[in-house]
């Protein structure tokens, strides 16, 4: 078995002891990870973009463990919505994407999108003149209106 790298966006509940959780990831599941992006607001949910490196089954187990502890884990690819069918291959988005997730195929001049390289900088969202990206790293929960129930 070989180790693989996977990127996940994880949303930690406000009261979670995320330090303890991530410690367990390293210790029990032998997952190496790096934090690519973090948005933590005191008393609110915190979002992290984590790159996990481990054996596939350990990643699986680690994710299950986190989910059991109320952490919402989504593979990065699922967080990025891209309406490929409307893309005109203009290239605007490739100018702002520094990770190489968005590049031009310089033979056919078509857009190449490799979501696994994305770090959710969100620069491509306003850069696309066709408005084809929907990347929302820290989705605000709709404010619950405390009326009635």
């Amino acid at each position, binding site marked *: 078995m070989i180790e693989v790298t996977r990127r996940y966006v994880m949303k930690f509940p406000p009261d979670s002891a995320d330090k303890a959780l991530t410690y367990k990831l390293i210790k029990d599941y032998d997952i190496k990870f790096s934090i690519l992006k973090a948005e933590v607001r005191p008393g609110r949910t915190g979002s992290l973009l984590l790159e996990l490196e481990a054996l596939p089954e350990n990643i699986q187990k680690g994710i299950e463990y986190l989910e059991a502890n109320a952490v919402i884990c989504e593979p990065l690819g699922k967080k990025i919505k891209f309406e490929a069918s409307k893309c*005109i*291959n*203009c*290239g*605007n988005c490739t*100018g702002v994407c520094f990770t190489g997730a968005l590049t031009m195929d310089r033979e*056919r001049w078509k857009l190449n999108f490799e979501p696994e390289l994305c770090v959710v900088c969100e620069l491509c969202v*306003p850069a696309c*003149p066709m408005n084809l990206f929907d990347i929302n790293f820290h989705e605000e929960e709709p404010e619950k209106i405390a009326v009635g129930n």
Partner: protein
Amino acid sequence: MSFKKSYEEINEKIRKGKAVVLTAEEVSAMARELSPAEIVKRVDVVTTATFGAMCSSGAILNFGHTTPPMRMERITLNGVPAHGGLAAVDTYIGATSENPDNIKYGGAHVIQDLVEGKTVELEAWGKGTDCYPRKYIKTKISLETINEATLFNPRNAYQNYNVATNTTSKIKYTYMGTLLPGMKNANYSTAGELSPLLNDPEMRTIGIGTRIFLGGTVGYVVWPGTQFNTSKEKNQFGVPMSNAATIAVIGNLKEMSAEFIRAAYYEKYGVSLFVGIGLPIPILDEDMAHRVSIRNEQIETTILDYGTAGTPVLGKTNYAELQSGEISINGNKVRTAPVASLQKAREIADLLKKSIQDGKFELTAPVAIFPTGTSLKKLFETEGGER
């Protein structure tokens, strides 16, 4: 004596299905092996194309008369202001006009919606006159319900365009795309050796009446485009090194396709319209064969700092470098990105090539050629300063 062909000879070949047609990229590759004298004997027509954001675009619409009739003086289409002041039920909807309540939706979107067969809400106001008593209307229109719908773009297909970068410490949102601070990217918009007006830089075969591909159907060049400038400095290969000539084009919007007419919104800039244009160039003689043979590395353009007032010049580059993905600006390596679609431009050049090969598209000699020796005027203020 050097070899020459007339428009009629070329059209005769097209009618017989015998015309040899290449795209401008194909002929540029051929020119590595063959001389212009050989190319003029082998090739009859070269197709060029572009698919980019062209802000100076719009459509002339005639809505038809209501009963009782109305003289529309203020008009909106899906909330986007269209021009009144054009008789009773004619309007011009400019691509960059914006809906004040939703600035991401503009005239370009109205045009795309119409092309896609959608209905659009028309609202109009007039003061009411004896012969046009009606004062207000709110109704739905589509391309099927209205009389004429004509795309008329006063300035399209710029002959070359500058490269945009940003030396400042702030991100800049421009019609040339998002420019990152500290010269971290450089954007370019011209299709290089495939670009229409770079393949006939002296505009010998492009003039009033030239039949073209426009937005998915047949269109025409009707006039020199606005800001038509023949005085820009040319390089040793005969092409201007910054934005120079332009064309005004016209075509039937009812026959167009959203594949080649596409609305765009640029963050903190506004709305624009991507327009697909294909332009055939007849290889009349050795000079034309030489012109269409131009290659990306021979087409130079100017790099401008869009972050700084007055857009100072930072240097020069060419399209071979730009298309390689990286250029050098004053010793710094800068990543490049296109902002117009070369893939779509190629699709158009291929479509036009096919229609000519199939005998469905004949070439036209210009009814009149464009002026030479034109340059641009600045707008000066006569009444005090900025308010």
